[in-house]
């Protein structure tokens, strides 16, 4: 069993692990010849099914195993994220599967440019500064510091993960591109705080605060929260409802979203045509953490049933191949649809 790769896109990988870590402490990672999958299935809350193309993160990637060159690992996300953070301004970073004292681990070897510039400058007087400028390229520069971070992991047998499948869900009633997630997050966090005012937040017995999220097929998104004392909502308009790709989705005329298009209006004032889901506010705040990846997010609403977010990783080539599927609220999920680009 061998796995070795150099990390080409440290930034993306770090943000990805940080986002996933908000949703659960452990991820199942499936390494295969053509893709890397991260799966998080917490006991309750939001599931994540992330599929990444190799070259969105890695470079010179080799994976070998007796099971069709597939390796399944259980990885603690906080440790992996911390390890990746130390590669923040690295000149190179490599990750490999190894064993130490019989314990499997992912070893990250990070090479950073030497911090030799520290040696003189803080204590240097004005004249010394000049000398330093000349000294560094020749005398003290060009050295490297190597950092090795060892992430403890578990290797999972093929049978353990064989039964794992992305949940199926009915076709969504509404699909919409979300506004910037930072905006959405700060508003929903604010709503949640307001709803919690005066409640004893420490008792776990307190009823869970639920946000109500609705969208229609005319570019409107509505976020609201209702308590005994208040009812606040915020409405976005002029958002984009992406078109379904007729080549990939059969029977567009029969698709629920086509029907929803007949209802409602673009100013968001009509009471018709909304698909609504209710989400645990804390869970939503965690989900919004994926915004740090900066990708396009399509939300799919199955009315009163489930909300699925598709997060597309931005890539250099302009193609958006890697997708994170984040399912929230309710018990059902559905398979990956295709969107006309």
């Amino acid at each position, binding site marked *: 069993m061998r796995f070795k790769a150099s990390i080409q896109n440290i930034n993306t990988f770090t943000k990805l692990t*940080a986002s996933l870590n908000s949703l659960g402490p452990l991820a199942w990672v499936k390494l295969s010849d053509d893709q890397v999958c991260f799966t998080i299935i917490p006991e309750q809350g939001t599931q994540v099914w992330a599929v990444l193309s190799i070259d969105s993160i890695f470079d010179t990637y080799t994976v070998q195993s007796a099971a069709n060159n597939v390796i399944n690992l259980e990885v603690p996300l906080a440790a992996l994220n911390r390890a990746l953070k130390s590669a923040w301004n690295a000149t190179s970073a490599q990750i490999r599967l190894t064993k130490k004292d019989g*314990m499997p681990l992912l070893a990250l070897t990070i090479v950073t440019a030497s*911090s030799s510039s520290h040696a003189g400058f803080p204590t240097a007087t004005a004249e010394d500064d000049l000398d330093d400028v000349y000294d560094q390229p020749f005398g003290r520069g060009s*050295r490297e510091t190597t950092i090795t*971070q060892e992430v403890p*992991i*578990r290797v999972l047998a093929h049978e353990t993960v064989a039964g794992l499948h992305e949940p199926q869900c009915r076709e969504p009633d509404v699909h919409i591109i979300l506004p910037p997630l930072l905006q959405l997050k700060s508003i929903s966090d604010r709503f949640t705080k307001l709803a*919690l005012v005066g409640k004893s937040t420490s008792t776990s017995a307190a009823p869970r605060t639920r946000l109500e999220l609705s969208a229609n097929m005319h570019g409107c998104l509505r976020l609201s929260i209702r308590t005994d004392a208040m009812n606040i909502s915020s409405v976005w308009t002029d958002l984009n409802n992406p078109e379904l790709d007729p080549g990939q989705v059969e029977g567009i005329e029969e698709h629920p979203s086509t029907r929803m298009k007949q209802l409602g209006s673009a100013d968001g004032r009509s009471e018709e045509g909304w698909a609504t889901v209710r989400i645990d506010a804390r869970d939503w705040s965690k989900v919004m953490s994926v915004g*740090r990846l900066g990708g396009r997010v399509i939300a799919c609403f199955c009315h009163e049933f489930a909300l699925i977010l598709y997060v597309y990783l931005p890539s250099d080539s302009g193609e958006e191949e890697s997708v994170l599927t984040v399912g929230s609220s309710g018990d059902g999920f559905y398979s990956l649809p295709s969107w006309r680009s």
Partner: protein
Amino acid sequence: MVVLNFTLIPEAAAKVHDLLVCLGKFSETVAIEARQERFTFTALNSSKSAYAALTLDGDQFFSSYECIPSQGGPDGRFTCSMSTRALLSVFKGKLYDPLGRDGAIDRCEVSVQDRPDETQCRFIVKMHCNQGVVKTYKLTYEAVEVMHALFDRNAAYNRWTIHSSAMRDYIEYFSPRTELLDIFAGEDGNSAVFKSYTEKITSGKDVLKNPLATAVAVNTSDFDSFSVDPGLHIIINVKDFKAIVLHADTLKTELRAYYSQPTRPLQFSYGSDGLLCEFTLMTSGDYNASKAPSAVPRQAHIETAPRPRPTATEARESRRMQPEMPQPVAPASQSASRRVPGSRKESSQASQNGSASLFVRQDEEDAQWEPVDYNNEEETLGWDASAEHDPATFQTFRDTASRARTQKAESNEGVAPTQRISQIKGLW
């Protein structure tokens, strides 16, 4: 009756804050020893594996300093111990602020009220703030005997010196939950490896709860000096090390390490502008693994060592070195009241020849993406008034290895155990 009065300028008061923060990581109580010439904070941790002595020079550190111990003449001393948190709540952060914003002071006057005609003994701190506001704090203290850990630098032939900011960058890689630090000198003599790790938990799912093991391999040329037996491992507590490095970094000074072999104490030393910090730490490691060094290189080393003379000469030496000393650096408490590992203010970053600090931008950006913890009550800081601290934490302890050599000195009745080795050097 003791007389102890001193005055601190805001920069010095901020440094007292910084050093109390550091000592607070070792012990809940800090002991004070005032002599005619100098003022020393000491702390010993509960497991007695780490001892800190931070000495403030009477002339250099204070704008005025007067100490007349009640007895003992020129060698007399005034000693007491106090709660570190109580002192910290007086020496808050942001005491020094050139713009005179909230919390900034004009000067700080400290005196000890310990007279037979007064009913109360108090440690009195007066903070003179702007607009003539004077805040007076009266702290209780406990009379204790202050002991010092003895460390024989002549025996500690393994030494290195590195700038604290470089070391600070390295410790930022360490996982916060690790316990031990292995300092390893490469076999080839060109590298030093600092490895933070935890004794493994090997059962079942708990394996994944192990914190990251981090090894930072540093080229020895990144050190200002490095002279350690090749292949020597020495293990100390990583939290102690982090506390020391973070404090040394507030002074922007060089950090020096002195040690001999595993199971023998190790000392870190640094200081500037009349402040000398010495930390003596217990070490562990495989005693047999270290090669017995031949006498020749050891001898050679002592001759070439940057500072072979023991500590008593330190103050004099640093005064002599003053012309080369750096400009006083603004204390950390001014630029960032609360240092989160990995975050650093942009301003200090800019001054570092463009060397971007670790993680900074990311962390700042990251915070807004973190899920909100609605249960998080606002942090409150108080101090423990229960007076349950063990007053008897101060005892003499020393490196047993050097006992053979100091036996003669010990048997000499006239020498107090608290004297520095240099002072009794003439006796043997």
